[in-house]
């Protein structure tokens, strides 16, 4: 058995015995992914350059992603019933399927590829190019996350799933790309549909009909999944699935407290690893992710005690929308120019006003739908903007970086109005930054630098004159 990957896996938090246990699987997965000894040096320096590997918790997070990748690539070999869901997802149905049977593997495969082939191996480009060649060409502002999914399937790196859970309530691209996979491979689809037909300004209110509709779609999708996968959703599936996500949310609250410190104890690039994991995995990835948080949080507590952190003390503090899923240099750009990111939208959600169910809903689907509409992202554009506004109340901020994805239509709806709205409502400066959160070829850190650096300069000058 080869051992050329041992050092990298140790760097990514694997214990020796874990590597031994996984050896056969690692090599099988690597063969399918086209990873070999020649890739180790690049991966090692790429990980060290982009992540704070002095933190054991961060190394464990990277390991959690690698475990998810191995499980994804070998799901068919492992005899699993494979379900892919579209990101960003209403995770409830996926979690319930996963909790109902050990034979079911549910994940967002594109996010897994981005975080591993992108963030660890720096080998995402060929996968994206395969996506471009198989139905999602460049130059049309098509989602690069879906390019990774299509490319991964086209290259045979990830298996063709048994079922696609299409997130039809948010973007149009996702379901259509799933249709593409169905047209090519005949994959059954369960569309979870919804309509973001809120009136501007309606958030946080929403019509009960929206809950009924989205809820019915979720329930329907679960029934279809049962049929296609030949499983039964266990009665306590929802409670079971909440076990991991509750642990995750509790830890997020601890993390939020630590992020109030000055300097912030950890880079948003590490938070990105964490938050994306919770939205992409229902299996080993998220379970390992929760364990990694248990290690990371005490490490950060030490940093806070010692007064050390990811950026200088006194750095202006901003909230950002998304970190880059594949190239952390883009995420870190904000910190490189001297800004601290103590808050992400996920942390703002946990720290914000608690979600209260509006009514008593009958079905698991409706309960899930009610929650999702209340949290804003699937409510409508003004829902997202208002969550950002609330973020400024969760902790004191000096500004907002609204990085919107040019190739995600629901996200690009935020391009202009968010800046105007937040500046008027909060009086804080807002940088509207157009990015691609899954592919840094056209929107590299270097190309974004001037705007982010200028914004940082503005905030620093403002902070300085406020002191004087």
């Amino acid at each position: 058995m080869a051992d050329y990957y041992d050092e990298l896996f140790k760097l990514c938090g694997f214990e020796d015995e874990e590597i031994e246990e996984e050896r056969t699987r690692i090599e099988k997965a690597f063969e399918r992914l086209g990873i070999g000894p020649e890739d180790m040096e690049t991966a090692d320096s790429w990980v060290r350059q982009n992540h704070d590997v002095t933190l054991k918790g961060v190394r464990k997070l990277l390991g959690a992603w690698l475990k998810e990748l191995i499980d994804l690539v070998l799901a068919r070999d492992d005899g699993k019933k494979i379900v892919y869901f579209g990101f960003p997802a209403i995770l409830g149905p996926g979690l319930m399927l996963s909790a109902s049977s050990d034979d079911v593997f549910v994940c967002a495969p594109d996010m897994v590829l981005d975080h591993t082939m992108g963030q660890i191996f720096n080998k995402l480009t060929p996968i994206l190019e395969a996506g471009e060649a198989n139905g999602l060409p460049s130059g049309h502002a098509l989602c690069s996350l879906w390019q990774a999914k299509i490319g991964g399937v086209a290259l045979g790196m990830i298996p063709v799933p048994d079922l696609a859970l299409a997130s039809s309530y948010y973007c149009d691209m996702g379901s259509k790309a799933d249709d593409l996979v169905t047209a090519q491979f005949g994959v059954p689809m369960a569309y979870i549909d919804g309509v973001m037909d809120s009136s501007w300004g309606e958030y946080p209110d929403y019509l009960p009909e929206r809950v009924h509709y989205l809820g019915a779609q979720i329930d329907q999708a679960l029934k279809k999944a049962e049929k296609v996968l030949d499983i039964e959703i266990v009665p306590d599936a929802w409670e079971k699935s909440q076990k991991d996500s509750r642990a995750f949310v509790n830890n997020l609250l601890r993390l939020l407290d630590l992020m109030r410190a000055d300097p912030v104890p950890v880079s948003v690039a590490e938070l990105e690893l964490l938050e994306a994991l919770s939205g992409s995995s229902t299996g080993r990835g998220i379970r390992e992710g929760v364990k990694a948080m248990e290690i990371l949080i005490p490490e950060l507590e030490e940093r806070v005690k010692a007064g050390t952190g990811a950026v200088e003390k006194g750095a202006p503090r901003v909230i950002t929308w998304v970190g880059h899923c594949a190239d952390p240099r883009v995420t870190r750009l904000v910190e490189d120019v001297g800004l601290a990111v103590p808050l992400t939208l996920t942390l703002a959600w946990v720290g914000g006003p608690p979600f209260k169910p509006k009514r008593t809903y009958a079905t698991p689907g409706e309960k899930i739908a009610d929650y999702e509409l209340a949290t804003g992202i699937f409510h409508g554009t003004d829902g997202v903007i208002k969550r950002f506004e609330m973020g400024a109340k969760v902790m004191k901020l000096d500004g907002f970086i609204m990085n919107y994805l040019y190739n995600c239509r629901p996200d690009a709806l935020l391009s202009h109005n968010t800046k105007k709205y937040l500046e008027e409502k909060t009086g804080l400066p807002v940088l509207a930054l157009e990015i691609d959160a899954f592919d840094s070829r056209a929107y590299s850190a270097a190309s974004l630098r001037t705007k982010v650096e200028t914004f940082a300069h503005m905030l620093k000058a403002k902070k300085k004159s406020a002191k004087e």
Partner: protein
Amino acid sequence: MKALEKLNLHLKTRLADLSKAKEQGRKIIGYPAGGYLPEELVLACDAIPVCFIQAGDNTILKDAGAYICRWFDPFWRSQIGYLTSGKDPYYTIADLIVTPITDNHTRAFSNTVGYYTPEIESFVFGVPHVKDEYALGYYLQGINRLKKKLEDFTGVEITESRLKQSIRLCNRERELFRQISLMRQSENFAVASKDFVALNHGSFIADKGVMVEILESFAKEVKDSAPLLKDGPRILFTGSTLARGDSKVMDIIEDTGGVVVMEEFAEGIRPYWGNVKLDGDLMANLAQSYFMDRVCPGWFRPGTERLDFLIKLAREYKAAGMIWYQLMYRESYKVESYFFPDILKKETGLNMLTLESEYDAMETGPMKTRIETFIETIRS
């Protein structure tokens, strides 16, 4: 006077007519294209429906650039531009803007209405993307809320008899469009596609009663006319949006000798294939007809109903080829255009040409090259 001349004359004074109607207390209800707003409801409360269907001139996209980034369908960016700039008088004259929310491009428009022009009264309701009983129920509750809004806004109750009357009128319009369109199934027909499209576009702005009369005249004219002398290949023309003011592709097809026998566009061509039932629950009938029976647009999941329909149309209209014309960044259509040609070829033996536009004037040259080449290949 010929029917199309009558239409042009009517449209010339339409704004003046609408102003007069406003002075008399009638409300103008504007709505963007897509075919999901039942005009019957507007007519039944004595209001006047006006569909925003103008686009094709990309200078308006600069105006839109102050409100939304570039990466949206240029038809919807045009609507944002017209709404915010005051350069389209139909926007200025509308008392209420109703937006059926279909995909994220209509949301770009409705967000702009809601946030940037809050002084304009507006209403939104959602159109699901799948066809099942729950989706139908959701669409129905949306148009029920719309009904209430219209009643409150106009002060006129939409009674069953008023609604029946307007359904009859709209059904007649649909029937006539159907009748005229079906003529093109034969080898010899007198209906020029550009005229058919002009009638469609006109119908979005014209008085409904006048439009029905014009269509009656036109149907008679073409029935009695000698067939068009066209021996070029029969083309099925489909895509995302065919706006009033965007004729470049049709012009090139005509110049190249192609004969368009059928147009299938979710935005720009009125869905005319079925009528609304007059017995039973009228609101449920509207929902059934407008949402369930209507062949779905490309952003539906899945879009296979439309793709199957295109295959059916290709056969029934004896098409020699398909031209798929879509607007940039309309991702649903882009993805379908990748896998559909193989299906079309397999089912019908036909080839498909894909064209894209951002309404840039200089696209004409490269488009001409493509269309000419395509026409030549299918001619042989």
